[in-house]
C-alpha cells in the first residue's frame, strides 16, 4: 500500500506548502498565523504518511522500485526515508490531487480550496480510523482532530467572504468557478485506491461525494453562494499527470536538497 500512503502524503505536503506561501503575507496577523498553523498540521500529517510509505518501500523494495525513476532518487542506495520521498521525486511521480498543487491565488481561492480539501479529508480520515491497516488508522485518528479545526475555520471564512462585501462575494464566485472542475477527482479512485478498497484498508472515496456535496451546499447556502453546474472534471494527478503549477512548486520545495544533496539544518 505504498502508493496509497504516498498519495495522502503528497496531498498533505503540497497543500501545506501552498499554505505556507502565505506566511508573512496573510491578510492580517491572526489569519497569517492561522493559515501557517494549518500548513504546519498538514506538513506534520505528510511526515507521518511519508514515514509509513518509506517503511513499506524498505520492506518490499523489489515491488516498488520501478515506480520511482528520478535520477536523484536512484542515488538513495540504502534505507529510504521521508525526506527522500518529499525531495527526490520528480513531478510525474507525485500522486496528489490536482486541486492541492494549483497556485495559491487570492485569499478567497486559498480559503475555498482549503474548505474543499478539509471536508474531503474529514470524510477520508473518519473512515480510515477503522482501516484494517493499523498504522494508517493511527495516522488518520491523529490527523482528524486537526482537520476538524480546519473545516470549521475555512467554512467560517467561506461564509464570511461569500456573505461579506460585493468584492469578497465576487472573488469567492470566481474562486469557486476556477476550482470546481478539480473537485471531481477527489471522488474517482485511482487503481491503487481501488485495490486498497478491496483489502478493507480504504472506503471507496466515491461514497463520500454526496455527503461532501451536502456540506458544501450547507455552507454555500449560508454564504449566498451556489454550486456550479457539473461540467468537465480535471483529473490525472493521482496517476502522476499534473498541471504546470506542480513543476514550479517542486523547483522551490526541492531546490536545496537537489543542489546540496544530504544537507541538513
Amino acid at each position, binding site marked *: 500500500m505504498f502508493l496509497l500512503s504516498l498519495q495522502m502524503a503528497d496531498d498533505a505536503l503540497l497543500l*501545506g506548502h501552498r499554505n505556507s506561501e502565505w506566511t508573512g503575507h496573510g491578510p492580517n496577523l*491572526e*489569519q497569517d*498565523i*492561522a493559515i*501557517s*498553523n*494549518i500548513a*504546519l*498540521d*498538514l*506538513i*506534520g*500529517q505528510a*511526515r*507521518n504518511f511519508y514515514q509509513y510509505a518509506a517503511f513499506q518501500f524498505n520492506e518490499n523494495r523489489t515491488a516498488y522500485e520501478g515506480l520511482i525513476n528520478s535520477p536523484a532518487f536512484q542515488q538513495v542506495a540504502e534505507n529510504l526515508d521521508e525526506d527522500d520521498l518529499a525531495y527526490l521525486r520528480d513531478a510525474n511521480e507525485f500522486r496528489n490531487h490536482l486541486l492541492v498543487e494549483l497556485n495559491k491565488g487570492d485569499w478567497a481561492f486559498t480559503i475555498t480550496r482549503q474548505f474543499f480539501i478539509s471536508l474531503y479529508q*474529514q470524510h477520508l480520515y473518519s473512515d480510515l480510523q477503522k482501516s484494517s491497516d*493499523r*498504522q494508517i*488508522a*493511527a*495516522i488518520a*485518528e*491523529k*490527523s482528524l*482532530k*486537526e482537520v*476538524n*479545526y480546519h*473545516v*470549521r*475555520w475555512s*467554512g*467560517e471564512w467561506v*461564509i464570511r467572504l461569500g456573505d461579506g462585501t460585493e468584492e469578497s462575494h465576487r472573488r469567492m464566485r470566481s474562486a469557486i468557478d476556477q476550482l470546481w472542475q478539480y473537485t471531481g477527482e477527489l471522488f474517482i479512485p485511482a487503481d491503487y485506491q481501488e485495490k486498497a478498497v478491496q483489502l478493507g484498508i480504504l472506503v471507496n472515496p466515491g461514497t463520500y461525494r454526496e455527503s461532501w456535496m451536502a456540506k458544501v451546499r450547507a*455552507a454555500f447556502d*449560508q454564504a449566498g453562494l451556489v454550486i456550479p453546474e457539473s461540467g468537465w472534471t480535471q483529473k490525472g494527478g493521482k496517476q502522476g499527470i499534473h498541471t504546470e503549477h506542480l513543476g514550479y512548486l517542486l523547483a522551490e520545495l526541492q531546490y536545496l536538497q537537489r543542489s546540496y544533496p544530504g544537507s541538513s539544518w
Partner: protein
Amino acid sequence: MQNEETIWELLEEVKDPELPVLSVVDLGIIRSIKQQGKAVEVTITPTYSGCPAMDIIAMQIRMQLSSRGYAPVTIKTVLSPAWTTEWMTEAGKEKLTAYGIAPPNPKQQVCTPEYFQQEEVVQCPHCKSHRTHRISEFGSTACKALYQCDDCLEPFDYFKCH
C-alpha cells in the same frame, strides 16, 4: 539500578521547549516507560502532527537519560490513541495558569465542528474574569488559540482543547 519510578522523576525535569513550565510528564505525552537494566525504552505521542517541539523533546529525553547512565535509550513514537488535552495533569494545568496561559477546558465543552459556534468560556489567567473573547482560533503555536480579557483587557493564549 534505579527503577522506572526514577525515570519518571527524571522526565519531570524535561520541559516542553515552547512551554518551559510544563514537563513532558505534565503534558501527558509519555505513554510508557520500559526498563531493563540500563536499557530504557520511552514511548511518546505527539501533541499535534506538525508540532516542531516533538523532535527537540525526543532529543532532550535522550540526553537526560543518557547523562544519568542509561544506555541504550530508545524513543518510540506512537500515534494511537491520539493525544488529548485530557491527559494533561492537574499540576500541569495549574502551572500553565500561573505562567499566563489559560489551561484547556474539559473536553465536552468544545470540538464540535459547527460554524460560528458559541465560543468557549475561557477564564482569564491574569484577573480570573470569565468575560473573555476569542481573537483567533490559532495562536502562537498549533496547540493554542488567542483570547482577550474584556475586564483587564490583557490578551492571552488559551491551550485549546484537543
